[in-house]
């Protein structure tokens, strides 16, 4: 069964179209993962976004943030007005997320290779405090070109941060440049419990997440989610011109119809 969050995808298109900025294909690549996490796994409360007992989600590939914004809006962290003022003067939502402005965003990301090691520190801090919060961090496969990703993977395994789960958005961006791209083998070589799932399939993702044993000390887990950049709208799918392109009115309509 394929899970397609077409409503969320339409909202992503509208937000980007109105804001005249954004990365639609990157957002489509991860929106099913982010939606499932916020609906079923993350213990978060929009009325108490700083609740000390909350779970953490960090979008290390910050340029996919419109997916996060629409999910945060669905969960009540953000309003329609917030979405409507994306990338406008006075709005709180930009093309990379700013945790000092956006409720529910835990880390300001955008420069790749930062969110994951930041999350390693977060996981370590919560463990020192004997807290049971869980930390999910989503990185891109292209982001895995960054050396800090592997520094952090090495450190997290050596610290046995069993309260940490990394999700890799394996949409093939990295393989365009570096085709030797066996991500599961790489993560396993770094000592991680690695699972591969279809990143657009609710059952497969759920199966991967359900098997994770979150514990203060233990091997951290990576879910390598096979995804399609631009998933859901044929004209967006793949690695073409749409990475950072804004649709015209006619293209927007075409995209929306594809998601009908």
């Amino acid at each position, binding site marked *: 069964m394929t899970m397609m969050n077409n409503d969320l995808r339409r909202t992503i298109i509208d937000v980007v179209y109105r804001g005249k900025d954004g990365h639609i294909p990157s957002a489509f690549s991860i929106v099913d993962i982010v939606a499932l996490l916020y609906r079923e796994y993350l213990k978060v409360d929009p009325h108490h976004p700083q609740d000390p007992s909350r779970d953490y989600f960090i979008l290390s590939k910050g340029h996919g943030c419109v997916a996060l914004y629409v999910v945060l809006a669905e969960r009540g962290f953000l309003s329609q007005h917030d979405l409507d003022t994306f990338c406008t003067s006075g709005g709180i939502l930009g093309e990379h997320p700013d945790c000092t402005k956006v409720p529910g965003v835990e880390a300001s990301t955008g420069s790749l290779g*930062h969110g994951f*090691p930041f999350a390693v520190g977060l996981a*370590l801090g919560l463990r020192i*405090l004997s807290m049971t919060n869980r930390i999910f961090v989503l990185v891109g496969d292209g982001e895995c070109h960054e*050396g800090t990703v592997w520094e*952090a993977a090495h450190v997290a395994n050596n610290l046995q941060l069993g309260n940490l789960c990394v999700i890799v958005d394996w949409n093939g961006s990295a393989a365009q440049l570096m085709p030797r791209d066996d991500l599961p083998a790489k993560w396993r070589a770094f000592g991680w419990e690695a699972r591969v799932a279809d990143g657009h399939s609710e059952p497969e993702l759920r199966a991967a997440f359900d098997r994770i044993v979150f514990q203060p000390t233990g091997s951290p887990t990576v879910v390598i989610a096979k995804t399609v950049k631009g998933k859901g709208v044929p004209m967006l799918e793949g690695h073409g011109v749409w990475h950072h392109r804004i649709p015209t009115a006619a293209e927007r309509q075409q995209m929306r119809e594809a998601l009908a």
Partner: protein
Amino acid sequence: MGGPNVMRQQFADTLLQVGREDPRLVVLVGDISHFILQPFAQACPGRYYNVGICEPTILSMAAGLAKTGFSPVVHTIAPFLVERSFEQIKLDFCYQRLGGTLITVGSAFDYSNLGCTHHCYDDFALLKSLPNTQIVYPASAEEFDGLFRQTYRSGKVTLVRLPSQAHGQAFRQEEIRFGSGVKLTDGSNLTLIATGPHLRNALAARETLGDMGWQTEILYLHTIHPIDTELIRASVRKTRQVLVVEEHVWTGGVGSDVLRVTRDIPRVRHAFLHLPETFVREYGTYEEHCERLGLSRNGIVKKVETEFRARTTLAAGSQA
């Protein structure tokens, strides 16, 4: 008088004492000072991590620890902490409005034989360019202890530049106040602003300068950022001649700050002893580097003579 190991030992002792009192102090090191920090590691289980040779990741991790309410200390060699990991300081600490303490060794060319890979003389400039940062440069054990305790929970990023050499001057506890410089001597026609170990040279030069007619007012800055504008302006208004001595390049250093904060005081003459805007490629001892670069007692005297006396004479001659 402090020796080369005094500063590093005080660093370890202070962390141990504060760590025992404050369960939110956590220390991350990049495979340096590991043995000297074992007392901290023993006394504060779970709050000491020798993370290894991955400085950018250590910085990001420290920011994550700050996010959970800890006061992180990151400690390693200056160029790896400040230069290599600059973006982590900028984005993971400053952009997210998180605080932590960065304690460097290998100040300027302290690793005098290791070449430029282990030198760092732009750290003031780099940190000052970021919001929510402050810089201290303690060159005595007492200063390190006092300034660390005063700053580590400030919510800002504090760079502590820990030199290998102490200046040997004893301060009263009340003189070690973050943000405030110290006036060591009164003078009337020359302000000498010293930083780091060069306070020793400034004090040594004063007597010679006195024989030459200079009544030197010595100011010592253990806080580099924010700079003590009031103290400097009060002195310079009186003396109208100021020499700044620092182990840093001109760009973004203390000298440029002194120039900035005194720019509206009329008829002030400035001189600067700083590092050249090039790599220090020579080898030798720390003292040999200092002597060659003019960061010495003789260098200070010579600088005053060439920059001020010559021009004073010239001015007097032209008036005649």
